[in-house]
């Protein structure tokens, strides 16, 4: 009966297995902890993530390894993105702790759900099969839905969770429907198999393109691109800030991986079709994100709209990979999209980290006014926020400039000069609301004069985050080349 059963190679999935095992351990340990030992859970969470990072780093050999009957892939792209995910989740955990403790939300469930969400992202990043991808997506999304509602006494958070859940499920449904169409046309769920079937040209194009529309919609929802962006401002605003921080950081990398796996690895033959869909979404996202952000008075909402605009920029690179029959632009375009996603995550962590820094027990620093006069309260952290805002606005010498720069090169290279001009004009409009934050911090007198309370670890990491934004701007080559190299070895 078991004659045909071959033990799969678990080795490529070692980080996922380790994380899952540790999550179960933490689940058990957490129950036994007393009030005064609460710090053990976050400490274990961070140790788990560092362990994952070590495993990923040590097993990284640059080979593309498929396992579990070609359902799971371990390549350099996956390793690089996973390392970035661990890193950003570590930042999230450290930034969140003070906020959660002050509101008695630092329960074990929070850390577990964060770990499970991380697991989901890892599975998504390593998926080479539609089912694995969907599985990862759902692990991540369900954990995030629960996290948004973790403060059960907050009606706003509950509403946000409902909205997120319903729209998220709808998007998952769309994605599944699209996948089933692709399956119908190609007869396989393996991403590599789909690409092969398309290459041979035996698949029914009409059905494929029909399915593609749904697949792209699903991806766009997860990225939060217009017109699938409705949930973004409400969820960013409604969720407790640490959760917003989480949603706004690592999942963007997972969504990028999803887009890469589905569109580039699987449906590359249909590039001309999905590129034109991405183009519409990119243009709309950049326009709407930047325009709507101006009108916001709540910084979390403002950053939500800015996230939409940033995702538009990333799509701008993704849509520039193929020009007619010519594909030599692809590497450049996709690596700049990846670089953009990584740069955005670094900036996003710093910006929401600042919101968390200014919040304290019983006080949410989520209005723009709360940043008034920060330069007088803490010149150092005002500088960190200034660097972050300027970087988001795309002003050199910060990482955000080079991210925009490489995306623009990709777009102009592909011949989309008009769209590039359009994009920079809207980033000019975008500069206004980032500058407004700097204006509040530097030009205005403080309203809130309470001293900033934060743990040393948070202060340290947030400073590091700000310095990273500046250093990656002064020496952008390392990160850029890493992205290119990781993609080159994985395509």
């Amino acid at each position, binding site marked *: 009966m078991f004659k045909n059963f071959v033990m799969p190679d678990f080795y490529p999935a070692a980080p996922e297995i380790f994380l899952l095992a540790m999550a179960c351990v933490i689940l058990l340990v957490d129950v036994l902890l007393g009030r005064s030992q609460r710090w053990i859970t976050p400490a274990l969470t961070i140790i788990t993530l560092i362990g994952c990072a070590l495993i990923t780093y040590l097993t990284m050999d640059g080979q593309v390894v498929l396992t579990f009957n070609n359902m799971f892939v371990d390549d350099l792209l996956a390793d690089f993105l996973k390392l970035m995910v661990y890193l950003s989740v570590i930042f999230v955990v450290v930034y969140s702790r003070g906020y959660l403790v002050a509101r008695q939300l630092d329960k074990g469930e929070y850390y577990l759900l964060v770990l499970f969400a991380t697991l989901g992202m890892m599975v998504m990043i390593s998926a080479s099969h539609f089912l694995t991808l969907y599985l990862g997506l759902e692990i991540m999304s369900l954990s995030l839905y629960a996290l948004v509602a973790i403060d059960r006494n907050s009606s706003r958070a509950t509403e946000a969770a409902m909205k997120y859940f319903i729209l998220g499920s709808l998007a998952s449904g769309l994605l599944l429907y699209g996948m089933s169409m692709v399956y119908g046309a190609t007869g396989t769920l393996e991403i590599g198999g789909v690409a092969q079937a398309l290459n041979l040209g035996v698949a029914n194009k009409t059905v494929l393109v029909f399915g593609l529309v749904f697949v792209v919609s699903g991806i766009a929802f997860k990225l939060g691109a217009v017109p699938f962006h409705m949930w973004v401002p409400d969820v960013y605003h409604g969720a407790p800030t640490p959760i917003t921080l989480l949603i706004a950081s690592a999942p963007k990398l997972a969504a990028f991986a999803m887009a890469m796996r589905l569109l580039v690895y699987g449906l590359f033959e249909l590039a001309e079709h999905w590129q034109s869909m991405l183009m519409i979404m990119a243009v709309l996202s950049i326009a709407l994100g930047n325009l709507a952000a101006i009108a916001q008075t709540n910084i979390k909402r403002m950053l939500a709209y800015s996230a939409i605009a940033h995702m538009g920029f990333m799509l701008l690179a993704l849509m520039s990979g193929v020009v007619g029959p010519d594909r030599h632009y692809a590497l450049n375009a996709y690596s700049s999209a990846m670089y953009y996603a990584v740069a955005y995550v670094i900036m996003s962590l710093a910006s929401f980290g600042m919101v968390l820094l200014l919040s304290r027990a019983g006080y949410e620093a989520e209005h723009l006014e709360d940043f008034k006069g920060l330069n007088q309260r803490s010149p150092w952290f005002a500088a960190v926020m200034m660097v972050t805002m300027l970087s988001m606005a795309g002003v050199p*010498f910060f990482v955000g*400039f080079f991210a925009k720069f490489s995306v623009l090169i990709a777009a102009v290279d592909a011949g989309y000069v008009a769209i*590039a*001009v359009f994009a920079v004009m809207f980033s000019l409009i975008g500069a206004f609301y980032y500058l407004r934050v700097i*204006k509040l911090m530097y030009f205005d007198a403080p309203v809130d004069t309470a001293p900033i309370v934060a743990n040393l670890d948070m202060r340290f990491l947030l400073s590091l985050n700000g310095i990273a934004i500046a250093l990656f701007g002064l020496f952008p080559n390392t990160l850029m*080349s890493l992205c290119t190299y990781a993609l080159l070895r994985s395509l």
Partner: protein
Amino acid sequence: MSSYLLSLAIWVPIMGALMVFAAGSNKNLARWTALGVALAGFIVTVPLYLGFDMSEAGMQFVEQRAWIPRFNIEYLLGVDGISMLFLLLNSFITIIVVIAGWQVIEDKVAQYLGAFLIMSGLMNGIFSALDAVLFYVFFEASLIPMYIIIGVWGGHNRVYAAFKFFLYTLLGSLLMLIALIYLFLSSGGSFNLLEWHQLRIDMTPQILIFLAFLVAFAVKVPMWPVHTWLPDAHVEAPTGGSVVLAAIMLKLGAYGFLRFSLPIAPDASHYLAPMMIALSLIAVIYIGFVALVQTDMKKLIAYSSISHMGFVTLGFFIFNQIGVEGALVQMISHGFISAAMFLCVGVMYDRMHSRNIADYGGVVNTMPKFAAFFMLFAMANAGLPATSGFVGEFMVILGAIKFNFWVGFAAATTLILGAAYTLWMYKRVIFGEVANSHVAELADINSREFLFLALLAFCVLAMGIYPYPFTEVMHASVDNLLKHVAVSKL
């Protein structure tokens, strides 16, 4: 030929600024550190002049290092006869600004001085960058400290002025960025400016590239009709901010024309020269009239700056040696004179807290030493012979008459207009009866103010009487540039 002088000129002030920030709330420590850094920043630029080979038209003190190999971007620095003097001017003005802010700025001293030092380093970077991305990065980064300076230490309407300044200039530079990327792609993957100078480009792209650069540089110069940010920025900025803005920042745009527009798109430059000359003349004449009716001294000097910068762009686009050299001399001379004029207004503003001409009158009775200095600078601004203001204007007018008599004639009206608005203002502020009790209580300049005014007065006179040391370094490079521009790249 390898040298670290240019890197030092850029990074000494910037690293020094970090030291000044570290001084934090200790105001005197911050001031002395800043002065030390500014002096060091000036000292490292002096060898650039002394070691400069005047017979060499190409780049000197070149530094070349890979910066972003991913896009073939280099850390490539170098100066020629066109750019070298601006590094000295910039570093010199930085010292003046530090001294000028000594007792005036009491709020967040370290940040104020640090911002100026950073800006000084960044602007040295702009004048010496030979890689387009490096240039762009410095060009845009220099907006940040100025935005902060106007916004934090500025006047009543500072927020509006700071935003207008930042967004206006950003608008221009973003379009330039697209042009840079286009040139990168069409040159086969290089951001090296000197290689771009050799690039062959068709007429239509040349015109588009020229226009993209025009938006960026015209905003910065500023040329009519995109000049409106300048009066706002000048009026609201603190004295030091106005000085740097007028003396150095405006020159960035003009420098950009010489380094980018003319050599990269020579055919488009010739084709669009009539438009550029027309815009320049409008700036010279129309803005001269606008200056005449101003009631605010800083605004008046701001408009006079626009008018003088019109001379500079005029000199560039008549394409002859004397015109271009005159324009360059005018840029440096205007750096001294406008700095001095804004400092003079600053001296009065610190005492009276008013910039309105109507609030003054008879200042000479209470501040005779000051009145003497102000007289010299006002005369220089009006283009009196034996001051630096005369040399540049005269050369440009000569060049313009060679090019076309009526263009020269129109340009020459500035001698009347400039004298009219400057001297009329001077008369209303300085001469006459003591206007009110505030003026009667004015104290004459102290030794610190005497120091920086005297330094500038020396420069203005020296350059006016013996301009040769300034012009001799330019000859070879300007000659080379004009030869280059005369050859079609189609």
